[in-house]
C-alpha cells in the first residue's frame, strides 16, 4: 500500500470512528422502570443481623419486611402485623400477622418464622433485643399467624423495639435462614419485602440489583418511612458502587445514575449548579459528631480532665470543619439527644454553651494531675468526617497545653485499636472520633454510645451508676411526659459525667436527577413512591 493510500484509509477510519462516537448513544439511565442508585458505601454483604452497617440495613429494607416500622414522627406503625394486644402490666404482648404475606420463595410467612427471626435478632441487638431477652419467660408461636411474648417484667417500649430503624432492625426471615448462628453470616437472601435480591448478578464492590417482587402485598396506607404501603414503581433497582466522589458526581451530572445517597460536601456547589440535578437534605434527623474519651486511663479517667475538654471545645469549629461553609447544615447541640425531636433536652448542657475558657481548662487539667503525658489521638484519615474532627481536636489539645500524639490511621485500624483496653503507652488510646446517626439518638434505647455500664459499655467504657439509673427510668416511663423528664435527667447526668463530647449536630445532602420525583428525607433511602420519567 502506498503511504498516501494508507493515510487516506486511516483518516477515513478515524472519521468513521469519531462520527460514531459523536452520536448521542450514551447509555443514559433513561429507562423509567430502572432506578440507578449510588449508595453511601459498598454493599459487601447482606446480613442485617450479622453486621450493623447502615448500608446493609438500607439494602435489607428492600428485601425484608418488619413487624412494625417507624414513620417520620418516629412512631412505630403496624407493618407485617394486623394488630396486637397487650396486658395492662406490659408483660404479655400478643401479635397477629396480616394475611397474604409471602416470602420470595412463595412460602407464606408464619409465626414460627417470626419467632426464629426475633430469637436471632435479640442476641445481636444490645440496646433493646437483649433487654427483652433478659425479661423473657417465653416467646411462642400460638398458631400460624399469632405469636406472643410473655415477660417477667414490664416492657412498654416493645413496639418501638420491633419497628426501630436503628441497626440491627428486626427483619423477618424464613425460619431456616433465621436459625443461623447470629454471629455467622446467612447465605440466602429470601425475604418478604417489596424487592428480590438478584444474588447471581451481585458483584460485591460494584453492583447489586433488586427486582420487584410481584407477590408483595403492600398495606393500604400511604408509605411513610418504614411504615405504610411500600409500593415500588420500578421493575428493578440497581445499586452502583462508585467509590470516587468526583466520578459519582460526574456520573450523576451525565445522567448515568439517577440518585446519589451521600454526595461529598465539597462537591455540592458543583451539583447545585448542574441543570439536571436536584439537591436536598438527606436525613432530617442528621448526625451528632462525637469526641470519645477513654475513661479507663489517665488523664481522662478523672472527670476534671474530661470537663477541661468540655469547657474548651467549640462545636462551631468542628462543624465548619466537617460540613464547610453552609451554615444551614449544622448547629451546636448542648446535649446528647437529636435536636428537634420530642425528647430533646439541654438540661445540664451549660458547659458546652458560651465563650470557651482555655485558662479554666488548663487549671482543671492541672487539678486532675496531668503533667504533659502523651495523649494518643486516633484519627481515621480515610473518613472525611473523622479526619476533620481529629484535626480540630489536635489543635484544641495543643491550645490547652496537652501533649498530643496524632495517630493517622485508616478506619479499619481505628476500629481495631479503639477496642484495646491497655494503657495508651502500650498500644491503647485516649481519644478517637466518630459520629452517631440522629435516628440512633432520639431516645436511650438505640443509643449505645450513652451506655455507662463500665466494662460492657461502648468503647471508652464510661461508668456512671447515675446515668444507668436514669436510663432505666426511661425504659419504665409510661407516657411521653415521663419519658421527657427521664431523658432530661439522663442528659444532665451524662453531661456531668462527660460520657463523651458531642462536637455538634450536622446534616448531609443527597442528590438526584430532576426526572426523578418522590425522594423523601429520611434516615435511610426510601425507594417506595419514587418515580422516574
Amino acid at each position, binding site marked *: 500500500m502506498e503511504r498516501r493510500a494508507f493515510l487516506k484509509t486511516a483518516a477515513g477510519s478515524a472519521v468513521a470512528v469519531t462520527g460514531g462516537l459523536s452520536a448521542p448513544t450514551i447509555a443514559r439511565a433513561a429507562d423509567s422502570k430502572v432506578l440507578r442508585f449510588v449508595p453511601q458505601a459498598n454493599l459487601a454483604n447482606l446480613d442485617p443481623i450479622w453486621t450493623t452497617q447502615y448500608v446493609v440495613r438500607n439494602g435489607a429494607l428492600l428485601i425484608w419486611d418488619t413487624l412494625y416500622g417507624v414513620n417520620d414522627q418516629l412512631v412505630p406503625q403496624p407493618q407485617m402485623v394486623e394488630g396486637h394486644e397487650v396486658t395492662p402490666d406490659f408483660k404479655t404482648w400478643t401479635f397477629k400477622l396480616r394475611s397474604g404475606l409471602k416470602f420470595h420463595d412463595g412460602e407464606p410467612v408464619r409465626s414460627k418464622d417470626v419467632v426464629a427471626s426475633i430469637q436471632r435478632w435479640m442476641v445481636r441487638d444490645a440496646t433493646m433485643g437483649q433487654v427483652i431477652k433478659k425479661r423473657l419467660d417465653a416467646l411462642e408461636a400460638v398458631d400460624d399467624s399469632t405469636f406472643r411474648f410473655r415477660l417477667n417484667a414490664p416492657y412498654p417500649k416493645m413496639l418501638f423495639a420491633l419497628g426501630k430503624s436503628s441497626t440491627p432492625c428486626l427483619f423477618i426471615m424464613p425460619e431456616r435462614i433465621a436459625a443461623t448462628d447470629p454471629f455467622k453470616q446467612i447465605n440466602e437472601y429470601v425475604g418478604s419485602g417489596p424487592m428480590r435480591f438478584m444474588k447471581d448478578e451481585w458483584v460485591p464492590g460494584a453492583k447489586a440489583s433488586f427486582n420487584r417482587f410481584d407477590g408483595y402485598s403492600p398495606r393500604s396506607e400511604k408509605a411513610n418511612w418504614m411504615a405504610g404501603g411500600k409500593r415500588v414503581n420500578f421493575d428493578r433497582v440497581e445499586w452502583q458502587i462508585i467509590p470516587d466522589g468526583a466520578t459519582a458526581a460526574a456520573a450523576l451530572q451525565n445522567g448515568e445514575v439517577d440518585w446519589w445517597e451521600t454526595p461529598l460536601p465539597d462537591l455540592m456547589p458543583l451539583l447545585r449548579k448542574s441543570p439536571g440535578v436536584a439537591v436536598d437534605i438527606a436525613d432530617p434527623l442528621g448526625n451528632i459528631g462525637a469526641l470519645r474519651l477513654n475513661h479507663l486511663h489517665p488523664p481522662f479517667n478523672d472527670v476534671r480532665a474530661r470537663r477541661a475538654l468540655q469547657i474548651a471545645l467549640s462545636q462551631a469549629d468542628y462543624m465548619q470543619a466537617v460540613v464547610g461553609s453552609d451554615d444551614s447544615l449544622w448547629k451546636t447541640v448542648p446535649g446528647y439527644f437529636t435536636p428537634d425531636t420530642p425528647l430533646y433536652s439541654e438540661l445540664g448542657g451549660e458547659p458546652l454553651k458560651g465563650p470557651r475558657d482555655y485558662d479554666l481548662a488548663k487549671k482543671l487539667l492541672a487539678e486532675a494531675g496531668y503533667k504533659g503525658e502523651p495523649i494518643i489521638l486516633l484519627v481515621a484519615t480515610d473518613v472525611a468526617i473523622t479526619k476533620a474532627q481529629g484535626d480540630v481536636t489536635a489543635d484544641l489539645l495543643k491550645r490547652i497545653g496537652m501533649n498530643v500524639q496524632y495517630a493517622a490511621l485508616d478506619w479499619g485500624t481505628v476500629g481495631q485499636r479503639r*477496642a484495646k483496653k491497655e494503657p495508651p503507652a502500650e498500644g491503647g488510646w485516649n481519644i478517637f472520633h466518630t459520629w452517631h446517626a440522629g435516628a440512633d439518638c432520639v431516645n436511650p434505647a438505640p443509643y449505645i454510645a450513652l451506655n455507662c455500664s463500665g466494662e*460492657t459499655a461502648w468503647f471508652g467504657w464510661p461508668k456512671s451508676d447515675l446515668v444507668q439509673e436514669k436510663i432505666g427510668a426511661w425504659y419504665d416511663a409510661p407516657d411521653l411526659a415521663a419519658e421527657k423528664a427521664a431523658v432530661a435527667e439522663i442528659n444532665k447526668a451524662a453531661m456531668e459525667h462527660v460520657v463523651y463530647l458531642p462536637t455538634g449536630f450536622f446534616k448531609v445532602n443527597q442528590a438526584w436527577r430532576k426526572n426523578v420525583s418522590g425522594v423523601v428525607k429520611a434516615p435511610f433511602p426510601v425507594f417506595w413512591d419514587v418515580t422516574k420519567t
Partner: protein
Amino acid sequence: MFAYIIRRVVATIPVVLLVALFVFSLLYLAPGDPAAIIAGDQATPADVERIRASIGLDRPFVIRFADWLWQVLNGNLGVSIFTNLPVSHMIAQRIEPTVSLMLLTLVLSLSTAIPMGVIAAWKHGTIIDRLVMMTAVFGFSTPVFVVGYLLAFVFALYLDWLPVQGFTSISAGLVPFLRNLILPATALGLVYMALIARITRATMLDVLSQDYVRTAKAKGVGQRGMLFVHALKNAAVPIVTIVGIGFAALIGGAVVTESVFAIPGLGRLTVDAILRRDYPVIQGVVLMFSFVYVLVNLGVDLLYTLFDPRIRY
C-alpha cells in the same frame, strides 16, 4: 525449549509460595480488624470478639497459614470474610474488565510509543524529537488520576461523547465495550507509552549508530525498511524487557484507573479488600497477580528468541 518452559513454570511455584508467605505475614502484622468493620460502629466490644472468633481470626498464625496453604494446594482460595462468596468466584467476576483494560492499554501504548520512539530517534535533535520527549515527560509526570479526571471532563461531561464510568462486557458488542474503556485505557496508557517511547528512542539511537546500519544505508536500503526492519528488530530486546517490567506498573496503575472510572476490575477488588481487611481476598488476588507477573516475564524471555536468534534456552 519445551523443557525450558516446563522448568520455568515449575520454578514459579516456590516464588509464588514465598510471595504467599510474605503477604500472609504482612497481613498478620498489619493493624486493622475485619471483625470491627463487620460489627459496625454500634457493636459492643463483646460482639466484635464473638465475630472475630466466628471467622477464625483468633487462631494462631501458624494454624491459619497452614489451613490457608492447604486450601490453596487443593485449588481453593477460600471464602471472603465479608461476602461469604468463594474468592475464586470474586476473582472470576473481575477478570474480564481488568484484562480488557490492560490489553487495550497495551495496544494503545505500544502502537503509539514505538513509532514515536523510532521517529524521535530518526529525527534526533529536531523539533519532532523534542515534541516526542515532551509528550513522554508529560506522561511520566502526570498522575493517572489527573489524566483520568481531565479526560472524563472533556470527553464525557463537556463533549458528551463517552460515558464517565462503568464497564460493558464485550459480549454486549464491540462499540459499547470500547466506549467504556477508551478513556481509562488512554489514562492508564500514558505513563506506559512514555516509558516505552523513551526506551525505544534511546535504544534506536544506539542501534542507528551501528556499522551494519551504515552498511545497509550504503547498500541503498530504504528509510522505512532500515528503521522498522533492520534497526527496530535489533532494538527489540530492551523494549520487550521494559514492556515486561512495565507490566507491574500497569497492575498498580489499574488499581487507580479502575477506581477513577468505576470499573469493576481486580484493582478495585484489591483496594476494597485491603480497606476492609478481607484477608482471603487480598491473599487470593496477590497470589494471582504474582503468578501472572512471573508468567509475563517468562513470555518476555521467550520473546527474546524471536527477536534475537542468538539467544537459546
